[in-house]
């Protein structure tokens, strides 16, 4: 199965920055682009949402990169796989 789109909920320290996360993740093969949104900032940590798209998004290698940078994947909030990305129904769970 080829993953085309992945949305991850990640908890990370303030350092390394989201820019370094973006830089390291986009070095992986199979990724065409990503967006990182900072959802919550705490005293020592940040909760970020990482949305990744590509021809064959390598989830386990992305998780390894995130962990080597000191982050932790809390959950996989969205996954799209197959020949094309199916548009969500709009009824997906909204996390507050």
């Amino acid at each position: 199965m080829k993953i085309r789109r992945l949305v991850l909920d990640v908890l990370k320290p303030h350092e390394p920055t989201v820019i370094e996360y973006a830089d390291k993740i986009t070095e992986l093969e199979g990724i065409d682009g990503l967006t990182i949104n900072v959802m919550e900032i705490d005293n020592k940590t940040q909760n970020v949402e990482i949305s990744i798209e590509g021809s064959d998004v390598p989830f386990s290698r992305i998780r390894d990169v995130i962990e080597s940078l000191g982050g932790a994947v809390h959950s996989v909030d969205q996954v799209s796989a197959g020949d094309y990305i199916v548009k969500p129904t709009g009824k997906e769970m909204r996390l507050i």
Partner: protein
Amino acid sequence: MISNFIRGFIDGALSTLGVVIGASSGNASIIIAAGTGGAVANGISNILGAYTASRADRYREMGEIERAMGHRSLRHSVLADKINSETTKRGIIDGIATILGGMMPVTPYIIGINPSTALFVSAGITLSLMFALGLYMGKVSKESLILSGTKLLVLGAVTAGFVYLLQNVVMA
């Protein structure tokens, strides 16, 4: 890193000036040996001291982040690598600056200036460097240059005066 350089340089310059003043009744070779030996020993000690202190501080911060991350270990993460590399650099810069600063008061004796005037040249060089460092610190921290330079100059002069009194009055 610049803070480690400044701290080490001041430490080396003032402590060696103290050694030079303390040994000033001896001949030039004794002053050179005492000053150089003191500067190098102080530098090596500061490499270890700055590295250990800085590492302990950064690891305490990392421990706080680990707790905030739900007790997730960061010992094998980029953060730990960064801490190790940064604290090693800090230690080396601190130690080299200590040796560099420490060599300044000894220089007049090494280049063969008359021992009767070398002590004053040594104090003059050290206090001028203190003033110059003060100017630089004032520029970096956007404070009054003259005030910042004078602060370090006075600190150096008080240290030199204190050691001079100790050597020539108390120990006489």
